[in-house]
C-alpha cells in the first residue's frame, strides 16, 4: 500500500508539544527565520508523523520547528523561527 505524503498542521502536533510546554502553543504567533512569514503555530505544516515532529512554513516550506521525544529526553530545535510570541491570555 502506497501512502501519500500529505501533511497535517500544527494543530495535530500540539499534544506532543504539551509534553514539553506548559501552555498550548496553537495560538502562538511564530515568525519564519527564512521568509519572515508571521502566523499562528497551528498553521505550520506538520510532517514527520511517528518519526518526529517537523513543522514547516506554509509559505516557503522551510523547517521552522523540530521536536522529538526519545522516551529518555525531549528534544527541541527552533532555529527555524526567529520569534515565538505567546499572549498571556493565550491569544
Amino acid at each position: 500500500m502506497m501512502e501519500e505524503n500529505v501533511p497535517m498542521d500544527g494543530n495535530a502536533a500540539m499534544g506532543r508539544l504539551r509534553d514539553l510546554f506548559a501552555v498550548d502553543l496553537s495560538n502562538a504567533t511564530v515568525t519564519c527565520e527564512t521568509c519572515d512569514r508571521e502566523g499562528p503555530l497551528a498553521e505550520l505544516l506538520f510532517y514527520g508523523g511517528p518519526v518526529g515532529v517537523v513543522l514547516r512554513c506554509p509559505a516557503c516550506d522551510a523547517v521552522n520547528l523540530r521536536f522529538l521525544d526519545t522516551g529518555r529526553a525531549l528534544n527541541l530545535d527552533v532555529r527555524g523561527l526567529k520569534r515565538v510570541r505567546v499572549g498571556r491570555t493565550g491569544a
Partner: protein
Amino acid sequence: MAVTRGFTGRRRGEGEAQDRVPPGQFVTSDFPVLTAGPTPQTAVADWSLALQHGGKLLGKWSWDAFNALPQTEVTVDIHCVTKWSKLDTRWRGVTFDDLMGAAGIEKPPTKFVMAHCDGGYTTNLPVADLSSGKAMIATHYDGLPIPAAHGGPARLLVPHLYFWKSAKWVRRLSFQDSDRPGFWESLGYHIYGDPWREQRYDGDP
C-alpha cells in the same frame, strides 16, 4: 502501561522468519511513506549525483551517465525505526563501491560521509558502512523506477542500518572528517542506528 484490550496494530507474523526480525520490530507487507517534508519532484533531466570532499568535486554523474554504471540487484530486509520491517525487498542501482570506482577513488579521503538530498534532508554514515557491498544508490524498487514518494529518482539504500539512513532523493555524498550528525541524528536519533542492537535514539548503547 495499560494494554488496550483487543489491539494488536497492523501486523503480524508471529513466527514468520523471526530470526530475520531485529528486536522490537514487526513485519509488514505495507511500505509506509514517512518523510520530514514535501516530496521533491526532480525530473531526471535535472538530476545529478555528486561525490565531494569539502569544496572539491570528486565525481559527478548525470542521470544517463549514472545509469550506465555497473548495475547491481539485491534482495534485502529493511527496518524502520518506527518498528516496521519489510522482508525480501528487491532493489536495483549502483553500489557505492562501483561509484567510487567510477570516480577513480581507491582510498576514501575521510572515514565519514554526509548524504545530502533534494528537500534538504541529510544523514551521516561511516564510509565503512557504505563500502564492501553494504550500500547502493538505488533507482529501482521491485523492478520499477522508484516513485517520488519512496525516494525516486534515486535513494541511498543501506539496509543493515535503520531505514532513516537510506536517504531518499539523494543528490550528493560529501566526505567529512568527523561523524557530524544529519537531520534526525541532530535531533536525538542514534548517530549510527544498528537495528540489531536497537540503536534507535541517542543514548541507546
